[in-house]
């Protein structure tokens, strides 16, 4: 990342956030259906990010060691295990599966 690239990257992401954060008018923001949509939308996005980071490489779908690590993380999260423990066990599981020669 060059100096110019870094600067443009920072300005660009900041602009994206501000456009999102300030594009809804006060009236719309108080609307009950809009409020509910704003509650559900992040879940779709977060879920999509997890799926993409787990099951894709570039533009291809892949099933590898990451899937095992994330599956373990999902089970632990469901059981309300603290976040840091979830993350460490997920990483160790993924590393172990790779050691065993898969993905």
């Amino acid at each position, binding site marked *: 990342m060059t100096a110019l690239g870094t600067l443009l990257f920072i300005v660009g992401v900041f602009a994206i956030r501000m456009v999102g954060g300030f594009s809804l008018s006060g009236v719309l923001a108080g609307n009950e259906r809009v409020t509910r949509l704003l509650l559900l939308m992040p879940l779709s996005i977060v879920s999509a990010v*997890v799926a993409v980071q787990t099951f894709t490489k570039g533009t291809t779908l892949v099933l590898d*060691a990451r899937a095992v690590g994330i599956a373990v993380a999902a089970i632990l999260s469901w059981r309300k295990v603290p976040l840091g423990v979830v*993350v460490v066990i997920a990483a160790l599981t993924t590393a172990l599966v790779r050691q065993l020669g898969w993905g």
Partner: protein
Amino acid sequence: MTAAAQPAAETVKGRGALDLGTLLFASIAIGIAVTSILSGVGTSGWAVMAACTFAYSGTGEVAYASVIAAGGAMTPALVAAMLVSSRFGLLAMSMTGRWKAPLWERIVVAHLASEVAVAAAIEAEPRGERAARRAFFELALCNTAGWIIGSAIGLALGDVVGNTGRIGLDVVFPASFVGAVVNGLRRKDSTVAVVAGAGAALALTPVLPPGLPVLLAAAASLLAMAAPAEMWRKRAAS
């Protein structure tokens, strides 16, 4: 992560030190992982620190680096980074009007609206506006502080980390907010949002440039609007 389903026993009580400490630890790990990828394409130390502090988009940094690593130029790398970061606009939008805030706070909230912080705010919302605000800032500050510390550690370690995949660092980032996803499975409408979001993103991945599938997957939440807003098990309804 605490479930929205739990009764409002502690009204504005924040998260335990253990939860925040572990998030801090996870964020440091993310910082190390992202830094090693950025350094791999010859990014200088100050650029790494500026990007993690002011852009605060790990996936954006990784997208940028992957285009450069594949021999691409700066412009396509920036386009890829912006596409991947486009979801932050929607995450910032989803924080609109959750509590009364002056302009400066709205700017800070829009800037810090990461997956983990937004997810925590939404989970805490049934316990009131103050609980949502507290949860958001606790996780956002832990996340960003840990990430900056982790980036600095990553720079100091340099090549010591080597291949991040070998020690499983590549799953640290998704694993840190998979909790919000599985929590979404406790309610009918959020289950639709979660399943349709992931399905849409995976289905679109082979046909669209990186970033767009996640952006379009946000539309899956429109489908979820049609599902009832209730728990799968009535017993746990809040």
